């Protein structure tokens, strides 16, 4: 079933694209260890993998935007190394990215000229995509995102590629336009050409794709036929053995807490976030599970006062609040730990200054700073978090994990009631991760309320009491941590119904 591609000799001869042993690292970070991919002519092939599995790096190598450190690519029977995207284009291999690559300040026609795209072909594919009356003099800057995606697709199709890569193109498309994209992909397949389809949406993959290659940690871990009930296998392959390990550790997930209500969110709408209601209690860690861009960013930003909601209410301690500034949220006891540490820390200043920043703002209210008091509180926080204090002069010289700890230490010293952690362990090693989760749990046990989003679903059980799942800006599921194993979360986060309900309702999205 999960045949590693190299083992089928007779398929070798008729493969359109064979990538084997591709590897790429950026400095110390290994993005791709050993990726294998085999695409037959006339096939729609899915490329799957969790965030950071190496999908985008693989796509960039295939299209010539990056060169691999090791491994070979055979395309149309010849071994190729593409040095630029235009070289790959000439060979008949082109990619349409999630964010459209039309230049915003050139008209669509000028964009076509820039890439030397045959215009009559472009027109023909526009008709097929249902945009027959599109005006080529439009400025991409003034067009809606879905339109841009379709234009980008038509531009790629116009060069009549042998292999078309669709990198999460459906992420920004409404359902009816997705259907049009699928039809075009199927048409290519009928003509004997191939498509590599990348999507987080399992339902789309099983509706469209003939086979799926799954990447994990930069390695190809299997090839699956999604149509034959392969979804479960894909999910398993994406998660890997780490899932079991984590599950074993989280054998006793915390029970839902019953403390007083800390924050109540009522029908909150902002951007993608489309009417979300839930309560967060003191003494609990409430997990938020979601794929990228399902509204979680807007949710956290609204709660932290970074962004104003379009409608809905945030009730803190019984009073409806509207935050105009992060300072308002901080005064209400709501503090944010962002994923990107650069956003929160003054990278070129010392650990002490970074930790004391909210103190300066709080205690002395712009007046003279009491150095002894400041020092005491900072030291307590630093010790408490076991921050590596060998290099304290500049925060940027600390490791990512230690930087994140400084971010948390700041609020420990400053004082808070509700901690909003937005993917706090992104890019942090496993040891520090455990420490941070342990700390979060302890804070909750001591009476704080914690809202925690993590992009690594298997880890939710490690830290949380309860989980809410966002999909398409709506709250689609809520469960106690004991039920929130990776499988249940992944299904819910992909917008699939839970196993018990209806295992077969996965029509084309």
């Amino acid at each position, binding site marked *: 079933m999960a045949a590693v591609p190299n083992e089928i000799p007779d398929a070798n001869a008729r493969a359109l694209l064979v990538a084997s042993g591709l590897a790429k690292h950026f400095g110390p970070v290994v993005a791709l260890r050993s990726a294998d991919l085999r695409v037959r002519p006339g096939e729609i092939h899915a490329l799957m993998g969790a965030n950071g599995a190496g999908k985008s790096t693989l796509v960039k190598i295939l299209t010539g935007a990056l060169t691999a450190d090791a491994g070979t690519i055979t395309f149309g029977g010849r071994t190729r190394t593409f040095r630029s995207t*235009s070289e790959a284009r000439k060979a008949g291999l082109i990619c349409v990215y999630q964010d459209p*690559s039309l*230049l*915003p300040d050139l008209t669509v026609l*000028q964009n076509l000229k*820039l890439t030397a795209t045959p215009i009559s072909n472009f027109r023909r594919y526009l008709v097929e995509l*249902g945009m027959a009356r*599109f005006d080529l*003099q439009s400025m991409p800057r003034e067009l*809606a995102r879905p339109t841009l995606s379709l234009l980008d697709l038509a531009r790629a199709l116009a060069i009549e590629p042998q292999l078309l890569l669709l990198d999460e193109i459906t992420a920004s498309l409404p359902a009816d336009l997705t259907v049009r994209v699928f039809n075009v992909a199927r048409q290519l397949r009928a003509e004997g050409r191939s498509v590599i389809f990348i999507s987080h949406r399992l339902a789309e993959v099983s509706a469209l794709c003939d086979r799926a290659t799954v990447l994990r940690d930069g390695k190809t871990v299997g090839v699956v036929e999604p149509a034959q009930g392969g979804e479960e296998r894909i999910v398993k392959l994406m998660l890997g053995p780490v899932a079991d390990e984590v599950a074993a550790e989280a054998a006793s997930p915390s029970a839902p807490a019953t403390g007083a209500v800390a924050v109540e969110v009522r029908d909150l709408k902002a951007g993608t976030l489309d009417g979300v209601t839930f309560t967060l209690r003191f003494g609990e860690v409430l997990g938020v599970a979601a794929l990228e861009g399902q509204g979680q960013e807007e949710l956290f930003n609204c709660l932290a006062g970074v962004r104003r909601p379009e409608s809905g209410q945030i009730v803190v301690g019984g009073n409806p609040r509207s935050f105009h500034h992060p300072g308002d949220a901080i005064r209400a006891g709501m503090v944010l730990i962002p994923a990107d540490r650069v956003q929160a820390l003054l990278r070129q200043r010392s650990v002490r200054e970074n930790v004391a920043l909210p103190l300066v703002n709080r205690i002395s209210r712009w007046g003279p700073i009491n150095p002894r008091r400041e020092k005491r509180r900072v030291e307590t926080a630093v010790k408490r978090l076991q921050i590596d204090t060998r290099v304290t002069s500049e925060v940027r010289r600390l490791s990512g994990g230690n930087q994140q700890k400084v971010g948390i230490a700041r609020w420990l010293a400053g004082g808070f009631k509700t901690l909003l952690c937005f993917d706090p362990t992104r890019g942090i090693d496993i040891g520090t991760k455990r420490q941070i989760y342990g700390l979060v749990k302890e804070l909750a046990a001591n009476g704080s309320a914690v809202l925690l989003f993590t992009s690594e679903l298997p880890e939710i059980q490690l830290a949380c009491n309860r989980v809410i799942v966002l999909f398409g800006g709506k709250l689609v599921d809520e469960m106690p941590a004991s039920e929130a194993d990776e499988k249940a979360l992944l299904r819910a986060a992909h917008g699939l119904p839970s196993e018990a309900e209806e295992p077969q309702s996965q029509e084309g999205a």
Partner: protein
Amino acid sequence: MAATAAEALRPTGIQFGRGIRRFGWTIAVYVLFGVLMVVTVIIKPDYGSFEWNTLTLAALPLAFAAAAQTMVVLSGGIDLSVGPLMALANVLALRAMVGHDLRYSLGVALIVLFEVTLAGALNGVIIVVTRVPDIVITLATSFIWAGLALLVLAKPTPGIPLDFQNLAQGSTLSPWLPDALLLLVVFPLVWIPLRRSRAGLAIYAVGSDRNAAFRSGVNLGLTRVVAYAVGGFFAACGGLALSMTTGVGSPLAGTYYTLSGVSAIVLGGVSLAGGRGGMLGPIAAAYILSLIPAILIYLGIDPNYGQMIQGVLIVIVVMVGGIGTMLRRP
């Protein structure tokens, strides 16, 4: 994600409205210039061909400086060495032309154009190769070009051949159509073919979104070098214009033009973030910036207020433009 296909694919605006929106700023700059001219004539009823002539002479080098900066800024860069490049062209021309006839001078002019274009290209090459930010490199090279200019000519010296000066200072066709105005023909000669070529598109592309330009197969490095080279060419034109309009070679003459050029392009609707704007707006802006001191003189106000008024004008115009952009946003 609520957008339906019909919403997403709806054509945006009608043709006419779009033209106004896309070229609105340029049109507004020309209207502003027209209004200021009317004001001038009201203030000074005896405004005649001589005054008009003076204005076109004063604005010519600034127009070229603005064009040079426009090229670079459209490609997403900035060139702080425009002024010194102009001075370099100016003193090179004087050294080589002194005491020669028109034909010889024109030959010198061509060589100077070539040399200073190369200097501009060198700016670009250094930026692309070293990957040091353009503002740092061009600040550094501005000192280098200025030093070179001083080596060529230590102090302001007259001696540009009169025939060469008359290329700008004469009025061959009509007193109301000074030759300085005719010299603007250089702009369409260079700009229109460039704008229509893939190189021109690539310059806009690189300034607009470098990542998308790269994905579209644009050669980023080469495109930026081309932008700096064409910028150098316009700076050379500016230096030669200085020679024609003043008749003097002056190693420090360029100082004023670096930042005034930036003012002109901002006023002329070129986005300092790159990728947006054209050549017509900055040229009109150069005339506006040259007209303001004249108006103050006619009013009997110290022309040193001109600088302050120029500053206030830029803030107001860009602010009004920003409000316009905000209102258009859905």
